[in-house]
C-alpha cells in the first residue's frame, strides 16, 4: 500500500470521492451536482449544503483550486495533491471491490 502525505484524508466519503472524480476538468458547483448524479447512475446525489462544505474543505486542504469565476459561480479543478489522494482512494476501493467480487457467489 502506498504511504504518503495524503493518507490522513482517507477514506474519503462517497460524496467527496465523487465530487473529486468530476473535478478532473474545471466545473462549477451546479455542474458538479449534475455530473455526480449522472456518473453515479443516480446512486449519489449531492445537496448544495454538502457540496459547499466539501468545496470549502477541499480548497483549504489544497486538493482543489479555483480556476475561474463568472456570474458568481466559481469553477474548481483538482490539484496534484488532490489527484494523489484520489488515486490512493481508488486503489483502496479496488481492493475492496475485488474482495467483494471474490465472495459474491457465497452471498
Amino acid at each position, binding site marked *: 500500500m502506498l504511504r504518503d502525505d495524503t493518507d490522513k484524508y482517507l477514506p474519503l*466519503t*462517497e*460524496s467527496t470521492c465523487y465530487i473529486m472524480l468530476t473535478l478532473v476538468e474545471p466545473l462549477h*458547483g*451546479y455542474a458538479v*451536482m449534475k455530473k455526480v448524479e449522472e456518473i453515479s447512475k443516480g446512486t*449519489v*446525489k*449531492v*445537496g*448544495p*449544503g*454538502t*457540496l*459547499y*462544505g*466539501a468545496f470549502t*474543505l477541499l480548497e483549504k486542504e489544497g486538493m482543489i483550486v479555483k480556476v475561474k*469565476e463568472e*456570474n*458568481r*459561480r*466559481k469553477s474548481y479543478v483538482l490539484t496534484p495533491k488532490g489527484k494523489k489522494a484520489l488515486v490512493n482512494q481508488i486503489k483502496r476501493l479496488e481492493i475492496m471491490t475485488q474482495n467483494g467480487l471474490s465472495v459474491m457467489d457465497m452471498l
Partner: protein
Amino acid sequence: MAENTIRKIKWFWPWRDEQEEAWLRSMSQKGWHLSSVGLPCIYRFRAGEQMDYVYRLDYQTFPKKDKQEYQQLFRDAGWEYIGEISACQYFRKEVKEAEPLEIFTDVGSKIAKYKRILAFLWFFWIVLIVVFPVRGISMDNPYPWWGAIQVFNLLIWLFFTYAIIRLSLRIRQLRKL
C-alpha cells in the same frame, strides 16, 4: 403593518433545527410563508395560497463575496434564499416529485454544520469566562447590584454550557448512524 403579514418572535435550540424546519413547512401549508428573518429572532410571514414549501437551515459565515457564490449555488439547485439570522441561513423550495429536498446529503456534512455552531458556542463560552468570570456569589460586597450581575453571568454561562452539551450529544447521536 399590513393585514396580510404577521410577525413572530421565535427562538429555537440549534439541535432542534429539524423541528424548526418542519414548523416553517406547516406554516406554509396553512398559507403563511416566511418572507424575511431578522435579529434577534424575528420571523415575518406573508399570507398567500396554501403551499407545500420545505425549509432548510444551514449555518455558515463568510465574506460578502463568498456569500454571493454560496447563494448562487443554492439558487442553481432550486433553493430560494430567504435570509439569515446570525449566520443561520434560511432556504426554501417547493415540494415537487423528483426534486431533492435535502441540502445535506450525507451524515458527515450534517455533523460539520453542527460543529460550526459548536465552535461558535465554545467561542462565547470562553469569552464569558475570560471577560465576566463568576467570582463567587456573596452579598457582602460594596455594591448592592454586584450579586445580581454575578447571578446573571452565571445563568448565561449555564445557558451556553447546556447548549454545548446538548449539541455535542446530537453530534454523537448522528455519528452512530
